[in-house]
């Protein structure tokens, strides 16, 4: 929206040309830079005043890309580096008095969280150098239109695979995407080196989150599965994930022809009734450790340090974020009632 509003000083840096497509409607210039290759990144960041690191990729690349982005930002003479970390570096939030800048848990079971933590520790050391301001933001679950934290639960609700752990009273630490962008703007305008959590103002439980999505999509909450919150039991999905993270698996996958991979994927999808239209709503719940952990979070993410330093940047509410998210879900066609409505309007 910044570009649409006429700002010419916001420049997307993308790893490859295919990433230009999703913003091709803006007709804005972009730069190519691969965060895994320091020299390409230095060219891409040349002349930048502020660098916002939003790189994604394999968890094993997180530390290296963070080091490269930092080095390129320094080389470019940038005054500030904003690094998007994640609240997952804490693991589960189990105490209400957790300091905002508590160090990450490097013994976390999730490779993504461990690597994000290691990247934070690298930047913690660089903060002492004072070569540029380094602001590490740790958002909760970034939600809103386009978010996998909306699409995943909504898909599960519509297709009958949604579940709540226990009574759903776990805390869902959400961060609405537009408010995150506002927070980044505030940081860039007046950077203060440090670690800051960012999250929505309202405390939302998973029951509230799923209930609101279900109501918006016309799904009966009675159809949502209930899973015991006593302890996590690894299911097939997580066991397969463990196989997928093996080096041997990746080696084999890289050597399979695209045609073969496509045929295998189709066969697997057929076996599980995969992407058939959402008409039955009778799927079983596939519990993953990630969601089990998230749903058993007991406390809210502390954000007082961010507010004290940068002011209160959140403008939205849970209700407004939900309305926008539901509008997006209808736009992408997830709400079957939207199709019926469209047919009715065509008929009339």
């Amino acid at each position, binding site marked *: *929206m910044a570009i*649409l*509003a006429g700002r010419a000083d916001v420049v997307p840096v993308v790893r*490859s*040309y*295919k*990433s*230009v*497509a*999703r*913003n*091709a*409607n*803006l*007709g*804005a210039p*972009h730069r190519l830079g691969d965060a895994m290759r320091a020299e390409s990144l230095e060219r891409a960041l040349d002349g930048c005043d502020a660098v916002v690191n939003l790189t994604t990729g394999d968890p094993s690349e997180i530390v290296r890309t963070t080091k490269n982005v930092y080095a390129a930002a320094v080389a470019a003479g940038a005054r500030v580096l904003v690094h998007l970390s994640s609240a997952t570096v804490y693991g589960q939030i189990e105490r209400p008095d957790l300091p905002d800048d508590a160090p990450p848990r490097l013994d976390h079971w999730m490779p993504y969280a461990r690597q994000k933590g290691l990247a934070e520790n690298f930047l913690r050391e660089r903060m002492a150098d004072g070569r540029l301001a380094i602001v590490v933001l740790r958002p909760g679950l970034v939600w*809103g*239109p*386009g978010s996998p934290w909306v*699409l995943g639960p909504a898909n599960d609700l519509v297709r009958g695979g949604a579940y709540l752990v226990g009574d759903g009273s776990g805390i869902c630490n959400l961060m609405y995407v537009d408010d995150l962008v506002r927070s980044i703007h505030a940081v860039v305008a007046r950077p203060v080196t440090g670690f800051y959590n960012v999250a929505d103002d309202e405390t939302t439980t998973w029951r509230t989150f799923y209930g609101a999505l279900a109501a918006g999509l016309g799904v009966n909450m009675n159809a949502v599965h209930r899973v015991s919150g006593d302890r996590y039991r690894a299911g097939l999905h997580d066991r397969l994930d463990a196989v997928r993270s093996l080096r041997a698996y990746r080696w084999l996958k890289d050597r399979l022809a*695209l*045609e073969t991979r*496509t*045929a295998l994927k*189709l066969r697997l999808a057929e076996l599980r009734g995969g*992407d*058939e*239209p959402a*008409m039955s709503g009778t799927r079983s719940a596939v519990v993953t450790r990630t969601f089990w952990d998230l749903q058993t979070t007991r406390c809210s993410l502390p954000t007082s340090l961010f507010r004290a330093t940068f002011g209160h940047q959140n403008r939205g509410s849970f209700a407004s974020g939900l309305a*926008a*998210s539901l*509008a*997006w879900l*209808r*736009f*992408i*066609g*997830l709400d079957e009632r939207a*199709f019926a409505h*469209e*047919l009715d309007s*065509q*008929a009339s």
Partner: protein
Amino acid sequence: MPDLVIVASPPGRHAEHAAAAFAAGSNVLCEKPMAASVADAEHMLGAARHSGRVLAVGLVRRMFPSLVEARALLDAGALGDDLRFSYREGLVYSWPVSTDAAFRRATAGGGVLMDFGSHALDFLAALFGTPAVHAYADDAYGDGVETNCRIELALPRASGVVQLSWSQPLVTGLHIVGSKGELTLQPSRVDSVRWRRSGESWRTLKSTVAWPTDLRRAGEWRTPRTYYDCIHAQLVQALRAVLWGEPVPATGENGLAVAQVIEACYRHPDPLRIPWLTPEEQAQTQHRHWSVERSAAA
């Protein structure tokens, strides 16, 4: 001189490259979209006719067994009349490309409508007849090309809405509803359709429609099961057209028809309503829409 030249350059160069191939005495299999404009498409057709060579267009979905099955169901009246449809196709773009030519109007002619839209419009034309555009809206601003668009179409056998996206994970598929039943199919499932008569359960029809797999007159035939099988079958069929004079799956006339629909869309684009934006942001998208800037420039 090669028997068959595959033209897979940026769409804005197709006419020039195809004409050069015809002039050299080759036949042409041209990637979709056949051309970035109706004038280019007509130029290509003229060059093909003048040279007496084959012009096949890479509208590969003509090879989908699901298309053949759906058309057979429609022809048999299984869905009844008063046919209405919704076609959605969208994902966050991930096709590996070596330049940004596909994302600039000068080289590509447009965005997602040129890209997925070529397939969608040709598929619908194969099912329902030549489309006429009732309304078109997209999200292109300034010098950009559309990453999302919505088209209202009227065709001889049906009417409906097409929604395409390069940036959103649309629930992809074609859904047709008639007075007696309904049908769904997905581009990722090239060999099956699901359908039901009103009040009955859904059933899956797995196709056995087959195409030649080699150039021998009495060679093997096989049912394509994946997109790649269809691409192979399309190439085989283009070569058989050159060798044996058999029909090509998608002709230059089919490619021209798609170009005409796309050009009709671009002639009167409205700003696409992005429903999750705030009213202020909506106003900005209206103000910056390429139709506004084009009108101002005119």
